[in-house]
């Protein structure tokens, strides 16, 4: 049962309702939750960076290992070394923050450049770039990262560089596809006809107006993927190394006690990962619906 109410029709033709009043409620909820998660991530990053933590994340209380939540002094309990989980959870995002941003910038910037080259210039640059994209896509993601780390250094920045590079093809294809679509509607010829210089056409019209929504969405997904990849690597021992906390290595450390019935040490960071990635996914979806217009129906 859907209801529609006729508001005061006085709103003029030009002054459309602001975006958030117009959007479907579900999209608002998505974007709202997404932004909440981003805010929390930023906050915990700042808290971690400035060191305002309830406990010293490194302080060990060897007598109090894997304590349950709400034990006195430790709101969320302690990990396998008796360190405060709450402090480490707040700090845990820090491991992803800068490396994650690095991964995103690589894939978005480099991806856009490749996409533009392939889509706009076409010709031989297109074939080379599609070859390069296919090459990167041919690697099983985790195996390539594993190879780089085992050969070089288990460092989160190495991981994120590889995640960034392997994220380029998706964005390159996306932009090349968009350009092909715009060319079909001879949008680009029209822009040229107006005598707009190439860079404004590319940067302003293609990238900013047409692709910004897709790029933002890819960025949010990129961050989500960066976190998941690091968690998997932690299981293999190649994630962020102790004593620096990261949600990934916390889940791994906690998981050792999971099958013995002690769920909490791995569940807490896993829920943190889950909530954050869900936030990124929903933010991506919500923005997509708002910026790219209504769903197909």
């Amino acid at each position: 049962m859907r209801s529609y109410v006729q508001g005061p029709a006085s709103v003029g033709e030009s002054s459309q309702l602001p975006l958030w009043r117009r959007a479907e409620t579900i999209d608002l909820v998505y974007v709202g939750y997404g932004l909440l998660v981003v805010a929390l991530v930023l906050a915990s990053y700042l808290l971690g960076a400035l060191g305002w933590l309830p406990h010293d994340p490194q302080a060990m209380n060897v007598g109090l290992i894997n304590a349950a939540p709400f034990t006195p002094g430790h709101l969320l309990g302690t990990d396998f070394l008796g360190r405060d989980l709450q402090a480490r959870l707040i700090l845990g995002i820090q491991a992803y923050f800068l490396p994650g941003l690095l991964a995103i910038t690589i894939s978005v910037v480099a991806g856009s450049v490749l996409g533009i080259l392939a889509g706009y210039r076409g010709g031989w640059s297109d074939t080379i770039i599609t070859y390069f994209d296919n090459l990167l896509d041919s690697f099983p993601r985790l195996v390539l990262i594993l190879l780089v780390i085992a050969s070089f250094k288990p460092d989160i920045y190495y991981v994120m560089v590889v995640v960034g590079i392997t994220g380029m093809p998706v964005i390159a294809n996306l932009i090349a596809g968009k350009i092909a679509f715009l060319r079909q509607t001879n949008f680009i010829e029209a822009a040229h006809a107006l005598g707009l210089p190439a860079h404004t056409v590319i940067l302003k019209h293609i990238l900013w107006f047409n692709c910004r929504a897709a790029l933002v969405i890819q960025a949010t997904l990129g961050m989500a993927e960066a976190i998941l990849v690091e968690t998997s690597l932690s299981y293999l021992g190649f994630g962020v190394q102790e004593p620096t906390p990261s949600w990934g290595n916390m889940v791994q450390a906690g998981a050792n006690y999971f099958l013995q019935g002690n769920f909490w040490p791995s569940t807490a960071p896993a829920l943190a990962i889950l909530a954050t990635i869900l936030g990124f996914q929903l933010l991506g979806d919500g923005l997509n619906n708002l910026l790219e217009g209504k769903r197909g129906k």
Partner: protein
Amino acid sequence: MDAPLLAIENLRTYFYSRARRAFIRSVDGVSLHVAPGETLGIVGESGSGKSVTALSAAGLVSAAPGVIGGRIELRSRQARRNLLDGLERYVRVKERDGRITAVEKDDRGWRRRAETLMEGVRGKEIAMIFQNPRSALNPYSTIGAQLVETIRLHTSVKGEGEARERAIHWLERVRIDSPRLRFDNFPFGMSGGMCQRAMIAMALSAEPSLLIADEPTTGLDATIQSRIVDLLAQLKIETGITTLLISHDISVIQRLADRIAVMYGGTVVETGRAAEVLAPQAQVRHPYTAALLASVPSPETIRRKSYLQAIEGEVLDTIEVPRGCRFYGRCNRVTEAIRENCAGLEPPLGEVAPGHKVRCWLYPATGKA
């Protein structure tokens, strides 16, 4: 006049603009009827609600809230029923001084109800052809396959070979060149005109009682347009099919329509036999119809080499519907006597002559609207 094949009474189809939190009153109380074998031409500027009326008749309106009131009586050989029967059970409407202010509609419920109502009607009794034919055909299957599908769906012909022959027969009737070859062509390989012919063949191959043609010639270039119009005229004679023709191009309407309905702002402002409505110097004519005719080159205007008059002002914004006559803002024949009425009160669709109705205070109704 014998009983109409299709009778639309007080049809209302609204849409909802989230941007302005208001109803778009595309079809705001339209009543029309089409007699068997007759071609009713609906003409009007774009945005006057003519296409929405057609889509509502065929039950193809999917946007929200869609059809919210009225009756569509279909009396064809196989089906005699009101296509909006029981609509009121799914729609609750709140009115305030004659104007709908809120609508509550059970979309899912009505859609299921409409499907049962349309059983054996959509595609069988009522067939439709659309504006840009090339995108209206399924690009992933051949013309022949799409034709065969309709034939096997809606006619007694079930056998593969038989259906194929029937399809080729129809391609011949729509005068497609080398139909046996075209049978295996894909839409993208054919011209707009060719596609439209295929669309027409596909529609008619179901042997429908009523053909709804929604802007069939728009989007085609001029020479092709006239050939398609000739084809439609030809088929009308050959099959005697009842047609609901929608077009903003008066010359197409002149050429094909037996009766005409002029729509403006979601309502019918004038309806009558083609000869009467389009007669060059008819005394009784709705100002909008006059303006429309004046903006189209006719042999007479060419002879007088007079300038064509454009109708000033914009098309009516069907969200802020004025109280009085919808054309009042752009009408140039308002006299002092009727100005007060024109501004404040919507004129009824009065009968000024047998079968000829006009919705204008210049011609106060002799009979009931």
